[in-house]
């Protein structure tokens, strides 16, 4: 698994260097970023992988020299889900689910990777990484915050919630790299990657891109059929059951 990933990384790097060389002049400081792949296939033996992100902070001749280094943050958000989180409480001696809170379009994978010293914007980055896809980020309070925390720890159990301060590595003072780990339970769909560039707490540039995690092969066909053609799928399962039962009966009667 390591060698193809390395190869992909090198290809990504080559593309990146080419784009740096061809990049247009003008803006003060600009992010040029690329991923090692834009599609991750999930087959039945999928046991997790990681995707490499390479980037360069590009600047032109007029750019003023900065005292401090660059701070980079990478936010990765998996395909959104509507979830219901309930606190279990004891009523009449048994454990039941309380009413709970619903969260709309929350990421099913949430990753935040930053340079080792992300500075004062870290907290707002944390909130943004948790934010529902397509909706504005806001701080949660009270019970709602607590229940969201429970959802996050549920994701973290399956390595779907990653907070990696120092996960973005500066290879030179302008060139950076990070590895986004995707566990075996990574849901399929479109992942949005947001790269942000700060200097001294000031946002200079941001760049958004995406990659896809796709199930393929037999599992994908079964899953797609069950969701896109549920009626047909139901009839097929019934047919399978009737045939299996019939054949089983015939086989064993002969013995």
């Amino acid at each position, binding site marked *: 698994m390591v060698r193809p990933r390395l190869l992909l990384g090198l290809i990504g790097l080559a593309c990146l260097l080419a784009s740096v060389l061809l990049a247009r002049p003008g803006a003060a400081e600009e992010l040029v970023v690329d991923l090692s792949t834009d599609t991750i296939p999930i087959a039945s033996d999928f046991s997790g992988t990681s995707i490499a992100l390479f980037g360069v902070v590009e600047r032109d001749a007029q750019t003023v020299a900065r005292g401090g280094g660059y701070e980079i943050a990478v936010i990765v958000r998996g*395909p959104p889900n509507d979830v219901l989180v309930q606190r279990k409480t004891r009523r009449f001696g048994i454990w039941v689910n309380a009413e709970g809170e619903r969260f709309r379009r929350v990421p099913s994978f949430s990753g935040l990777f930053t340079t080792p010293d992300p500075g004062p914007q870290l907290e707002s980055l944390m909130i943004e990484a948790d934010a529902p896809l397509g909706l504005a980020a806001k701080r949660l309070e009270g019970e709602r915050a607590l229940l969201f925390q429970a959802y996050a720890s549920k994701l973290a159990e399956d390595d779907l919630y990653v907070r990696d301060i120092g996960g973005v590595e500066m290879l030179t003072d302008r060139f950076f790299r990070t590895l986004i780990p995707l566990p075996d339970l990574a849901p399929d769909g479109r992942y949005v990657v947001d790269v942000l560039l700060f200097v001294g707490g000031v946002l200079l540039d941001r760049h958004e891109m995406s990659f896809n995690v796709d199930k393929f092969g037999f599992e994908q066909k079964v899953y797609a059929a069950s969701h896109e053609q549920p009626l047909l799928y139901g009839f097929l399962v019934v047919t399978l059951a009737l045939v299996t039962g019939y054949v089983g009966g015939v086989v064993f009667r002969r013995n």
Partner: protein
Amino acid sequence: MEVYLPIAEMPIGVLMGLAMGGCVGLISGLFGVGGGFLLTPLLIFSGIPPSVAVASVTPQIVASSTSGALAYFRRGQVDLKLAGILILSGSFGAIAGAELFALLGSLGQLTLVIAISYTVFLATIGGLTLFESVRAMMRTRAAERRGETALPARNGGTHGWIHRLPLKVRFRRSRLFISILPVIGLGFTISFLGTLLGIGGGFILVPALIYLLKVPTSVVVGTSLLQIVGVMAVATVMHSVASQSVDAVLAFILMLGGVFGAQVGASIGRSLRGEQLRALLGLLVLAVGARFALNLVLPPASLFAVTVVGP
């Protein structure tokens, strides 16, 4: 060897799946029951989401009842008219059950309802079975001590009110002339419960047909099996449509194990005595019920429940 379950979205050991299907098949062959009421809990306890467990055992029940239903049908031991009415009314029960199932899932209360229903249901059935079989054993022993042969237990009360209901229909094969209302009621209720809990319901249907409707024992098992095949087939389609939680891969693994286990169980079962078998079954059912009860009472591992309700 592991295989990835596309709907449950988790891997499962193929051998474990086959073994579970096989064990339950063995028990069902041994005791002459469908086994859904054991297979569904087994899957839940092994970490399969309850919604997928219930919905995927449903087609497994179809498979395990098919060969039996066919065998009885060939011997002419099926009342087709009675089975037809039971299936028709049962289809409505299955639709209602699958809708309630999907609704409870979106409210995040499905796991709790399944756990409570199973506790109550298994405790009642297990307790009754155990009590009945122990009494029968004691009666046999007492009769032997007196040097007589044991008399078979008398049927329950005559339930005259059931036979006074209107809309009477003739069931030629069962030699019955009874109201259609209790037949419809029975078909609906058992299918509703069966769809909600992932059980065939033969366990309740057979005694109900014998004691309530006075269906002759010669046709009761075949009719009940045909009813289970029909209703569980409808329930499979309804679960597929309403909650999309039928896992075809899981169902197929369970079917393979179940079909094989049932044959082995049936051949072992012939060498054991009825009352002892039933006492054993009662104990088994009580044990599963107790496990559900414990889960309800003991503090859970996680104090929060997370349910994905939509994409």
